């Protein structure tokens, strides 16, 4: 399957702690994106990192990309209860097509 693999499948942390989730993929990519999905809702784009970038920040989010290992990680610092959601990586190639990972379910306990 072309689908990306994410780990962990589920993560439970306390408010204020950091959350790290990882994504691996198999094909060559132009960019890698992370999306959040709250229960019963559509996905929301969080951040995009290009294949020639190694690290990117946006607010409390930090994304790293290692194209030699075909892997990426998303770090959410100082987590809040509102960060509770599923997080998906998605990688894009030459076309506008995105292939999504299997997702990480994050629960932030208040």
């Amino acid at each position, binding site marked *: 399957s072309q*689908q*990306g693999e994410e780990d962990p499948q589920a993560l439970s942390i306390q408010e204020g702690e950091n959350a790290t989730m990882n994504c691996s993929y198999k094909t060559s990519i*132009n*960019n890698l*994106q992370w*999306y959040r999905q709250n229960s*019963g*809702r*559509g*996905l*929301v*784009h969080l951040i*995009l990192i*290009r294949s020639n970038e190694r690290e990117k920040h946006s607010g409390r989010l930090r994304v790293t990309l290692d194209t030699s290992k075909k892997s990426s990680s998303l770090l959410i610092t100082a987590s809040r209860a509102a960060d509770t959601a599923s997080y*998906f990586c*998605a990688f*894009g190639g030459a*076309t*506008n*097509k*995105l*292939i*999504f*990972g*299997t*997702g990480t379910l994050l629960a932030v306990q208040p």
Partner: protein
Amino acid sequence: EAGVAQSPRYKIIEKRQSVAFWCNPISGHATLYWYQQILGQGPKLLIQFQNNGVVDDSQLPKDRFSAERLKGVDSTLKIQPAKLEDSAVYLCASSLRGTKNIQYFGAGTRLSVL
């Protein structure tokens, strides 16, 4: 700016019945996508339109699924006849050309096939 609109939000049907979903993308977005998301999994692309032409439908089960995007704006996805394994959330997304395929999603239609 209005987001991607989808209807209905929920649909319950019996197997072998037919069902249709509707999507209205963000104004000006040329690319429209339909995804199937089975519980506990990531979205799987079913079909991608560029304006009213199909770009990718390699994972669309064409014996039962069909989609169209007349006039390059709204789109409908149809399943006929439905099977139990079609129970899933059907997500519509759209993107603007030249934005590195950042996609904007609707809230989805949750389909239950009994």
